[in-house]
């Protein structure tokens, strides 16, 4: 029993390791925020002084978060912007999608990044830290840190898959009717109308989606199941991305899979990708 609790602690609150995965999540989330909102908050859209302030803060904070310049402050400022957009502007008439689930995923991801050293790798902050170390004749700062909050991303994924599967666990969904309704809306009078609204597509597709979502709720968190869960999850979200207007949702979810992996394994994989092997490995070189 105590062994299981120790393993759980090591997996969650005591997790330490490479900061590369959270840095990649930071870069990915910042990119998705820009993709999702930049066009809607850009200066040419503004009609009020509040809009101008939102535009300036949005671009300064998100771009600084993207490149990792004063990362902590940048992530905090981006969080403030996204929380305001979600809770204040999201429910106002004429603003569409700012309080949808894909916006929530971006907001929560940014909020969680405040709890992690996501500027220690792949950032302007790291370049500056390396220069400082070089000037002082010190070793390069390690790309390691306390990642106690990283698994909260994984739990967020688990919650999304589980509760969305609960919502689909009824006859209306399993029988393909709800998917057919969605496809009627999206595909009526489009070339694949006949295929995507047919029961022989909607019934197996609905059942498969439900089964995969329940499996992902557990499979992404269990290391032995990850080799099956991750490709299945990627395929599921690719299918959503191609068939339905999901905006940044699919890409955000797949990006957050990084948080369920062993951070040191991700670090070693990147080393191998860049040609650093065994004795030649130099994880601190830029």
């Amino acid at each position, binding site marked *: 029993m105590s062994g299981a609790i120790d393993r759980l602690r090591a997996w969650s609150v005591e997790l330490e390791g490479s900061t590369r995965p959270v840095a990649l999540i930071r870069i990915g989330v910042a990119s998705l925020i820009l993709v999702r909102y930049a066009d809607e908050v850009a200066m040419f859209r503004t009609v009020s002084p509040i809009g101008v302030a939102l535009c300036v803060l949005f671009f300064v904070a998100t771009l600084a978060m993207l490149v990792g310049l004063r990362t902590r402050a940048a992530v905090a400022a981006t969080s403030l912007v996204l929380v305001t957009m979600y809770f204040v502007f999201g429910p106002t008439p004429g603003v569409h*999608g700012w309080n949808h689930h894909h916006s929530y995923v971006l907001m*929560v991801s940014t909020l969680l990044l405040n709890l992690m050293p996501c500027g220690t790798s792949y950032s302007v902050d790291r370049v500056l830290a390396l220069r400082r170390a070089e000037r002082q004749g010190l070793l390069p700062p390690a790309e390691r840190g306390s990642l106690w909050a990283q698994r909260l991303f994984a739990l967020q994924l688990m*919650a999304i898959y589980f509760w969305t599967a609960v*919502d689909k666990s009824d006859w209306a969904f399993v029988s393909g*009717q709800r998917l057919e309704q969605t496809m*009627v809306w999206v595909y*009526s009078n489009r070339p694949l109308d006949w295929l995507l609204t047919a029961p022989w597509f909607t019934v197996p597709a609905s059942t498969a989606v439900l089964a995969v979502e329940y499996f992902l709720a557990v499979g992404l968190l269990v290391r032995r199941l990850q080799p099956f869960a991750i490709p299945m999850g990627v395929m599921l979200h690719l299918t959503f991305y191609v068939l339905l207007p999901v905006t940044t949702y699919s890409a955000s979810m797949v990006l957050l899979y990084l948080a369920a992996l062993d951070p040191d394994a991700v670090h070693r994989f990147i080393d191998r990708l860049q040609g650093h092997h065994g004795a030649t490995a130099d994880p601190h070189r830029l």
Partner: protein
Amino acid sequence: MGRARIARRLAFCAIAAFVLLAPMFPHVFNIHGKLLRPWMMYSDVGVGLLKGDFRIVEAGSTRNVAPLELMGLERYPRLRHYRFEQRVLRDGDLGRIAATYCATMPAGARLSFDGAVGTRGGWRPLKADDLCGSAHVGRD
């Protein structure tokens, strides 16, 4: 154990509990709030859409018209919120949707609908006779 460590553990447990259990309120207890987000992707998309055909009987001839054609739409609008006026959510909506089309029909022509309407519980049968006159709408 240091204070920082205790604070981290408490914070982790609190956030994890919120992330995992907060959706239970809207999903299980039907309690909604700004912080209690349900995970219901695409759950309302298609609610209020019609499946079936409108039938027009005039001067001894009969022809069918698809719902989109009757609404004068080529496709359903590409909206982020998936809400638009021509959905059938309550009694009277079908007649309201048909009203514009009725104005173009010759006197004496009858417009009826036989099909189903999309709901959260799936397709529900929907029939209506003489939509341009005193419509009788029947739902099962």
